[in-house]
């Protein structure tokens, strides 16, 4: 297990370094902002008691707000990526620094203040020469506290595409890969320890150069520290700027948070990288349809794979009773008119939805299609992801059409559904028809005999402006249009989900073996 992990680590070492650097950048920038806000605010409330009680109370309450919830609420306002993440991290870092700045200033022995006044210091000079230096150890311990919190919370940045070590964790969760989760979690914990050690060393250094009575002024270390922070911040600026810079030839590809989306997005990315000179940025695992669609509308991503049925029902909220025809054409037209988004051609398969049961259970009860399941449903439990429970094309429609009345509905994450049914915690799961796990879990899909589901053909959705600007994208993707069958997709999915291979490796192998890379 450990050896396997070390091997895994060495394989992913370069991306680990990159993610670590992103993580540090997020943390450093947030701490810088938080300090810039909290320290002056702390000074203000130490001087002027008016807002003190209110601010400190509000600060302590702020710490109880769940960070993920706050992030989700901010996305519509601030968009995806760097901005909302920095905002949230800064928000949580402010209070410990504020509290400690205030406490530090409050607890300065009176004799020093008296001396400063008696010697004729201006109020400002008293602050700079006496109060802040004496409160510094307290402020630094606030900074330590804030740093530990921020490093932890920064892992959520991955949910909205800001990078950092959280990327490994969300990927690991999406792919149910514990190695990936550890690859994110262990360095995060180590980083928290390292930062804490670093700051305490800085404190000691500061103290020791006092003890040694050398010529080195303690201030030098303060500048060193501030300089270090500054370099990190600048590094972060230069590091992230090319990614955010729309002027350079960059295309940002997004995906929802399940393996098939990862594979399709990665496939598009590799083809574009292979066949064009565009630089590709991957913002995978963004989350639900609504979030990814919103990101596309905001221009935070340029391209992602979507399913016709999902677009028709969830995004366009069109009616569906099983009789409508030509969904793909309607979706194409509506996306163009309403959103200025362009659908390219289908990849060739349809990933519809249905319910799956264990093979032995199906044989014992002679189940072939969903209609067969209806009479038994009141004794059965169903496990499904949250999206499936709420979406109009999910459980709601199924119940209506087939008259299901399940004993119990369990909400689980997509990757845990199979564990749930394997451990017999549920009898039925919601499943996609191309799901790679169906085979190994020994499940069979029950046929949607009443045709309540529309076609779920998968195809790339692209911003029209990007399509106009870079027509080469469509050309680069054309080799996979209509090429991927359902069977092929199940095969690719199963390589990722069951064999634990990385989507990038699976895609690369597929493209190479199918001779879809350009001949160079």
């Amino acid at each position: 297990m450990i050896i396997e992990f070390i091997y895994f680590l060495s394989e992913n070492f370069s991306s680990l370094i990159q993610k670590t650097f992103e993580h540090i950048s997020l943390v450093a920038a947030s701490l810088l902002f938080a300090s810039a806000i909290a320290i002056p605010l702390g000074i203000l409330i130490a001087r002027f008691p008016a807002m003190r009680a209110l601010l400190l109370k509000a600060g302590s309450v702020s710490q109880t707000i769940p960070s993920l919830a706050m992030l989700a609420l901010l996305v519509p306002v601030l968009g995806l990526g760097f901005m909302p993440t920095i905002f949230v991290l800064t928000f949580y870092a402010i209070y410990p620094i504020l509290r400690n700045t205030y406490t530090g200033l409050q607890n300065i022995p009176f004799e020093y203040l008296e001396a400063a006044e008696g010697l004729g210091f201006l109020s400002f000079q008293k602050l700079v020469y006496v109060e802040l230096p004496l409160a510094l150890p307290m402020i630094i311990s606030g900074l330590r506290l804030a740093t530990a919190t921020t490093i932890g919370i920064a892992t959520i940045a991955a949910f909205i595409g800001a990078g950092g070590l959280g990327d490994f964790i969300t990927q690991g969760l999406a792919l149910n890969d514990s190695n990936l989760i550890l690859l994110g979690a262990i360095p995060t914990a180590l980083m928290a320890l390292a930062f804490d050690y670093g700051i305490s060393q800085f404190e000691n250094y500061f103290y020791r150069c006092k003890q040694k009575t050398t010529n080195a002024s303690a201030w030098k270390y303060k500048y060193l520290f501030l300089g270090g922070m500054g370099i990190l911040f600048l590094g972060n600026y230069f590091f992230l700027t090319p990614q955010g810079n729309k002027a350079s030839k960059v295309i940002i590809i997004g995906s929802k948070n399940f393996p098939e989306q990862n594979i399709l997005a990665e496939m598009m990315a590799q083809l574009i990288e292979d066949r064009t000179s565009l630089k590709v940025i991957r913002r995978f695992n963004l989350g639900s349809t609504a979030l990814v669609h919103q990101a596309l509308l905001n221009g935070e991503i340029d391209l992602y794979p979507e399913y016709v049925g999902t677009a028709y029902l969830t995004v366009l909220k069109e009616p569906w009773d099983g009789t409508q025809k030509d969904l793909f054409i309607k979706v194409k037209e509506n996306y163009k008119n309403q959103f200025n988004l362009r659908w390219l051609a289908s990849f060739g398969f349809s990933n519809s939805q249905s319910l799956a049961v264990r093979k032995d259970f199906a044989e014992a009860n002679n189940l072939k299609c969903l209609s067969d399941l209806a009479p038994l449903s009141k004794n059965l439990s169903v496990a499904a992801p949250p999206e499936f429970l709420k979406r109009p094309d999910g459980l709601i429609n199924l119940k209506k059409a087939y008259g299901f009345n399940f004993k119990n509905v369990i909400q689980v994450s997509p990757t845990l559904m199979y564990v749930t049914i394997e451990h017999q915690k549920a009898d039925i799961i919601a499943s996609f028809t191309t799901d790679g796990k169906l085979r190994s879990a020994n499940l069979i899909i029950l046929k949607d005999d009443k045709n309540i589901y529309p076609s779920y053909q998968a195809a790339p959705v692209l911003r029209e402006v990007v399509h106009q600007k870079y027509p080469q994208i469509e050309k680069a993707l054309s080799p996979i249009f209509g090429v991927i069958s359902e069977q092929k997709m199940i095969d690719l999915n199963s390589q990722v989900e069951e064999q634990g291979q990385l989507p990038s490796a699976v895609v690369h192998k597929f493209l190479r073996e199918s001779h879809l890379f350009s001949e160079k």
Partner: protein
Amino acid sequence: MKNKKLIELKNISKIYPERDIPTLDNLSLSIHEGESLVIIGSSGSGKTTLLKLLNGLETPTSGSIQIKGKSINSYDILDLRRSFFGYVFQKIGLFPHMTVKENISIVLRLTKKSPKFCEERVCELLNFIRLSPDVYLNRYPDELSGGEQQRVGVARALAADSECLLMDEPFGALDAVTRCELQDEIIRLKEEFKKTIVFITHDISEAFKLGDRIAVMQKGKIEQISSKETLYGSPKTPFVEQLVQTGLGI
């Protein structure tokens, strides 16, 4: 020269609303140029308040303070504190995060003197208070003994070459030997630099040793102000008499 008035307080009262009796009660006092005036009294007699009135850390409820014949209000109060008065505190109050050099030169640095000037001045003062600059320049206060700390405190008060030193029970916390040494330094300081010194103590023998004139304070009033001989020879009140005898007893 002896009678030239440097500072004059007229009918000063200081009343804190939270106390029943006035801290200073219609008090008048002249401080002469070049003299050492020791103010002695028990705690709560108002002597520290009197000292703080002089450099504007407190303002009187009524009465007037004149410095060199002009009202204290006509001066820039920060300028007075930096350049006219030097203050030596009871609790010393050396800044713990600054070296001896930085502590002594802080007032010079506040008034933007050049680093070279500061360094020279600090060395001069360290030599005067008999602390070798080579050893002490870059030490921090917590590396000094109590006596050394207060020597530095005195040097800090002298840094801006102020005319008048205000000393608020500066040697109260020191042991007898160190205190005696430092008292000798003050006498030397007065003779060498001709500084005017206002010195607060509750120790009558210290008052006798240092004071050209001694003011005995009780309950916000000056009971008697005179030379030690007069104080001893003809005490005006029973309190003064008792105080003088306690002093002689030691």
